[in-house]
């Protein structure tokens, strides 16, 4: 019986993994299609669609915008989210739990709702500059990732380490930099990656705040697919996918993927 159960579980696990990965494999295969219309079985391979990515209308400005917004919002979130997490984990803040819940609540909200709410909110206060509204909106998206990861990281951080550093000759800020930051490096890395990815591929919030000249990459990609569905988009997706895989692989080498999943420390 137990044997059978284990076999069922294994089949389930393998099946699910295939189910999750299959679309990614299909898109990777499609990106090497020699013909504009992707067809199975493949009749050869071509990399010409990769060459076309750069010539897509408005591709470079969108890529640049997405990178800018993702990097900036991640950087700001890392600093402010960490400080907030310290206040929650360390300070004798009354209602620290409520505060923590509020900080991570955007994670639980549908992106669409968040997008509409932000749009209405910004309009109400007359804040309409597209680039700036995008940045602020993406802060709302990225901050919860950072706050959640840093609160968890700080809960395991022993603040006596800072006192030890101080008695060894470090100033207080020096101790934070020399001891707390390196000890929390894995948390920073995890928070940074999730925050960057959450911002970089966000569609539902950005769509409400973008205008004709300020379009993030995901918005631009959806537009391409409506205009001309050829394998160029598959090539671009495959590139983004490879970038993500490399990022995750490198950070797994550094801190371990199981820590990112939050299953153990």
């Amino acid at each position: 019986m137990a044997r059978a159960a284990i076999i069922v579980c294994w089949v389930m696990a393998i099946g699910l993994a295939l189910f999750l990965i299959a679309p990614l494999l299909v898109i990777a295969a499609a990106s090497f299609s020699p013909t504009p219309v992707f067809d199975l079985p493949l009749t050869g391979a071509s990399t010409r669609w990769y060459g076309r990515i750069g010539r897509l209308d408005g591709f470079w400005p969108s890529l640049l915008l997405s990178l800018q917004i993702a990097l900036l919002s991640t950087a700001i979130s890392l600093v402010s989210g960490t400080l907030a997490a310290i206040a929650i984990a360390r300070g004798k803040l009354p209602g620290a739990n409520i505060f923590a819940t509020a900080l991570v609540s955007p994670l639980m909200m549908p992106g669409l709702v968040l997008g509409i709410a932000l749009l209405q909110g910004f309009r109400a206060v007359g804040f309409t500059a597209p680039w700036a509204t995008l940045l602020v909106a993406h802060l709302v998206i990225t901050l919860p990732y950072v706050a959640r990861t840093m609160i968890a990281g700080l809960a395991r951080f022993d603040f006596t380490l800072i006192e030890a550093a101080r008695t060894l000759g470090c100033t207080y800020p020096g101790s934070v930099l020399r001891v707390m930051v390196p000890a929390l490096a894995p948390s920073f890395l995890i928070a940074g990656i999730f925050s960057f990815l959450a911002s970089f591929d966000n569609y539902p919030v950005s769509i409400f705040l973008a205008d004709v000249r300020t379009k993030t990459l995901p918005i631009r990609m959806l537009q391409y697919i409506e205009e001309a569905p050829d394998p160029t988009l598959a090539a671009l997706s495959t590139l983004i996918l490879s970038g993500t895989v490399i990022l995750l692989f490198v950070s797994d080498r550094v801190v371990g993927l199981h820590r990112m999943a939050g299953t153990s420390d």
Partner: protein
Amino acid sequence: MSEAAPHLVVRSVSKRYGPTTVLDHIDLTIRRGELVTLLGPSGCGKTTLLRAIAGLAQPDTGKVELAGRDITHVPPHKRNVGVVFQSYALFPHLTVAGNIAFGLKVRGAARREIDAAVERALSLVKLGHLAGRRISALSGGQQQRVALARAIAVEPDVLLFDEALSALDRKLREEMQVELRRLLQDVKATAIFVTHDQDEALTMSDRVAVMNKGRIEQLAEPRELYLRPASLFALNFVGLSTRIAGTVLAAGNGKVEVETKVGRLSALGNFQAGSPVIVAARPEQFRIGEQSEANTAAGRVRSVVFQGSRTLVEVDAGAGESLLAELSGRDGAIPVVHDEIRLSWPVTETFAFPMEMQA
């Protein structure tokens, strides 16, 4: 500086957290090269006193002087005080050698100097072979040594240990007590050692400060603390004793006659007639039978506990009082349970303490 010169002086230091007075006008003077233990129950303020000396807690009143310098308002990083924390507080992102080098690096010492100091500290704690290890790959005892080496490496004016051995198992702790004491003497360190383990205090220290509710009840050499406890609290906290309540009948010449439920007893102490007191004596002062210049009391043996070189005998003296005697087989037969025996103990080893709220 001479050996006897005061090195660390704590003058009337007080500290309150909200309504609780955690340190109540603490005075403490420690000589250069001396090892003093702070001994006291949980919550009596030991850690807070250490933190005040290290600069991690600011006292409300009083002064702290170290090596002839008033450091009351000096921040911790400029005090040159070494601390070994109970949790060791080793930096997880650094190796063993990296931890030990930390203090010298932030002081901007030269590379060669740092390497030499790290090597010296490592060999002192016998961990030379583990220099490149990660902290997480060390046993508790090894972590303890790294914490010590890290504190010693910067050659602090005083070393503070906050229950540094309490996380180790009993056998390792006893080994470390002896080793640590020898090591501290070798490097001529001045040190304060916090513990609530009386054996550790007696083993490790030149002097022991017994703390209670934010005050130092007695500061004395271990032997004196045991033989001449200054208060009932000190008597209770260090070692075993027999304690009998009574009322002073007559007093004079530093002696008192006390009426108790087990009869009239003589004791050392200065009280007025009529004062309620506790008469106390250490178990090893008791003998079976009579002796001259002694108090005596009789009773029935309640329990006999064999402890190797000695045997602890508890005698029910009636009226709810009991006597605790430590007998060595040499002086005659060891009684058995239910024996009726008479015990005596010298008047000069019997003390009277004011009856107060017992701690």
